[in-house]
């Protein structure tokens, strides 16, 4: 019996948590020192740091920080393996793959549409409505964004059209899940099918076999005059797309909105306990309508990024499951904008890395494509773990 007490005792100190985090950081350090610009060419220091990371993880684990602990141990192992791999591969290859400024730029490109959609998902789910339909709303934005830009000859108007189309589809979801008290998962699934059909239909009807024409007005990049040519920053963010900046700026904006304004307080109250919100006189249904429509707008803007900002054209089912990744980011980030940002950056970084790793091994190129998914899974299992959704998410509110 006393054994139990001893085993648990360290858990009551704050140290294991810090040790676990330190382990995670050490593991990253162990890996990074073998990369440019440091380029340590022997694995020994990495091994030492990695073992330290695992040790810290082990202590944290024993101290009842089981998730952080196991995360640090796992990451430590990965880091040592990765570092060993790095020291055995050519410097030239390492320099090609790990050009940090380029990696960061690519990470942001991958992350932007996911971030916009995930922020939308947060708003919707914080109000108590599950939005499985993010994928469909993104797809609407992707098509109608470029269609609008094409027809109206302006990317600004294109984005507005995209936002409107996402809002419209979200309105359908809202009507079903709020007004008709539909099951929100089912409704969202239907929304996705519907969007696939609608965008495919109009795409073919409007553009036939030729696809969207070239030369459509596109969302421009933002050239930062001062740092555009400054080393790392110039490459990483010197010429990022306008929508990337908007998405990034929306993170603090949404954080303030949700946690520092009366509207955010009300929105969260509606998602946590709508009956309580109702009894203090808040319009539960209207709040949810607002939130769902807002989520559709943001998701659609994410879709418009794909078509009208990044590649300048549309193809059927262009979003290819990104809405679901965004959904995962919402949960990964524990329904917080900063959390979602971390999730999509991790995902984006892994994607960017996966694109470049074939430099080392062409035959494993397809395996590297799985990297972002594997890393996300490890991150969720090892570090994030249990997350608590807004209490009333998914429950239609019945007002008497």
């Amino acid at each position, binding site marked *: *019996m006393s054994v139990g007490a001893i085993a*648990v005792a360290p858990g009551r100190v704050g140290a294991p948590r810090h040790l676990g985090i330190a382990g995670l950081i050490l593991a990253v350090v162990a890996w990074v020192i073998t990369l440019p610009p440091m380029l340590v060419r022997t694995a020994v220091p990495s091994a030492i740091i990695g073992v330290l990371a695992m040790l810290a993880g082990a202590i944290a684990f024993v101290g009842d920080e089981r998730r952080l602990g196991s995360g640090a141990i796992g990451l430590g192992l990965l880091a040592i393996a990765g570092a060993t791999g790095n020291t055995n591969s050519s410097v030239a290859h390492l320099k090609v793959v790990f050009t940090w400024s380029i990696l960061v730029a690519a990470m942001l490109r991958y992350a932007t549409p996911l971030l916009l959609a995930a922020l939308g998902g947060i708003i919707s789910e914080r109000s108590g409505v599950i939005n499985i339909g993010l994928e469909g709303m993104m797809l609407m934005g992707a098509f109608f964004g470029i269609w609008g830009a094409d027809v109206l000859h302006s990317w600004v108007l294109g984005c507005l059209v995209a936002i409107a189309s996402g809002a419209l589809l979200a309105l359908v979801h809202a009507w079903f899940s709020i007004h008709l008290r539909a099951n929100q998962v089912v409704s969202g699934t239907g929304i996705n099918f519907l969007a696939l059909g609608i965008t495919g239909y109009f795409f073919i009807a409007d553009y036939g076999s030729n696809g969207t024409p070239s030369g459509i007005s596109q969302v421009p990049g933002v050239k930062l005059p001062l740092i555009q040519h400054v080393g790392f920053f110039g490459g990483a963010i010197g010429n990022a797309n306008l929508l990337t900046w908007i998405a990034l700026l929306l993170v603090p904006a949404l954080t303030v909105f949700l946690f520092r304004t009366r509207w955010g307080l009300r929105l969260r109250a509606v998602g946590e*306990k709508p009956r*309580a*919100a109702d009894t203090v*006189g808040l319009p539960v249904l209207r709040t949810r309508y607002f939130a769902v429509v807002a989520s559709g707008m943001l998701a659609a803007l994410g879709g418009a990024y794909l078509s009208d900002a990044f590649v300048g054209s549309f193809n059927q089912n262009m979003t290819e499951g990104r809405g679901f990744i965004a959904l995962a980011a919402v949960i990964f980030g524990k329904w917080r904008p900063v959390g979602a940002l971390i999730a999509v950056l991790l995902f984006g970084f892994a994607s960017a890395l996966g694109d470049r790793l074939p430099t080392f091994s062409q035959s494993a190129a397809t395996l590297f494509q799985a990297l972002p998914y594997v890393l996300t899974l490890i991150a969720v299992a090892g570090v994030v773990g249990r997350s608590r959704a807004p209490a009333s998410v998914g429950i239609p509110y019945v007002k*008497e």
Partner: protein
Amino acid sequence: MADSTRPALEPRASTRPALELRGITKKFGSVVANDRVDFDVYPGEVHALLGENGAGKSTLVSVLYGLYTPNEGEIVVDGRPVEIDSPATAIRLGIGMVHQHFMLVPVMTVAENLVLGHEPTRSGGLLDLKAARARVREISERYGLAVDPDATIEDVTVGTQQRVEILRALYRGARILVLDEPTAVLTAQEVQELMDVLQRLKQDGTGIVFISHKLGEVLQVADRITVLRHGRKIDTVRREGATEQSLARLVVGREVLLTVEKSQAHAAEPMLVVEHLHVRDDRDLEAVDDVSLSVRAGEIVAIAGVDGNGQQELVEAITGLRAPAEGRIVVDGHDITRKGVSAATDAAVAHIPEDRHRRGLVLPFTLAENLALREFRRPELSARGWLRTGRIRSRATALLREYDVRGGGPDAYASSLSGGNQQKVAIAREIASDPKLLVAHQPTRGLDVGAIEFVHRRLIEERDRGRAILLVSLEYEEVRSLADRILVIYEGRIMGEFAPDASEEELGMAMTGRQAAAAG
């Protein structure tokens, strides 16, 4: 209390009622929940609404608070007929409501909950939480309702949550306060505090609607009492001259036995022995601190105490739901410490849980399926992985008859039953497992008089059949009328053992942590 109670009607007779309900009828389809009910409350008066569960009390206040629209009748506030179509309107008219199930957002702080809907803001819509906190302190000082504005609701006691509810109504300037079963979840101590608060509010001129089905406290607090039965108003009486017996007759429509008849216990060998038990709660804090106790066959031992003093963790440890950090639990000679629920079940431990919706029943299951939850592993009900559905069903039919469960046969869904019948199902299941030890955790919570009567009778019967019963209850009366021995728990420790006839003061002292000389 009595000293501070002023005669309510006479001095107020000249003033007009703060609130009047005239001929309120509310139908749900063909079901008439309120049938031409009249009700009023004057400023500075406590008017109790008394009735059994389902008598229409909650419907009436829901009408009053704008949650339902009445089919007929009118509502008059300060002499003006009004239409209350939403809580927002009710709030605007100065009606505040303290719900039976608190309308608070558990993950938010006290201050956030308090201001929700009426938030002080700085420019740009930014919340001014500083102003909110200041306001909380101001009101709480004025009415003696101490709360920490920064505490999160889910971390504070039920009593505190109720205070927040009251504060919130006041914060919004309520002149009429409706309290729906406010004492149902409170400890004796907290009930007393609530009474004091109500007194202060009364003096301040607030009109109070006090809803309850407990006769004693209604007599204690109310100036007038209106009794509802089957949706109809039966009578309005003054507190003076009313007795528990007279009220009970009005409420139930017949004479009821208010005390449980019980013979002397014939306690035999110890069935449950708990030694030096330490249990941690969800937040890894010590909730049960070195508890030792024993329950013998044929006796009822009650754990009395204010809610949140480790009762839940103690019950969970004994029934195998929570692994204790230290200590030993032996049932009938079998050590079941940290062996889980199945081991406890195998050792013939049964458990009537505190919350039948959360734990006691799977509401979307049929009654037959619910009745098998405790014993589905036994060969009578399943063999080699297969369910014996025929037997499960026939056994259910028998149990439902034996326990007089109304509202459906074995194939009815548990969700379609009334609360009392649901509780009967849970009790039937547990007793049918022929337990040596029965752990009853708040077995009458939320039940009406008739159902409580049934449960109490049944527990005594089972005791007399030689079962060991561990009763955990917050109800003072229940503990005293059922228990053969009373153990008072405070902050996870047993403060002492008392005989059922121990005085209120003795028990109250122990429940608030003051060490009393252990009696009997």
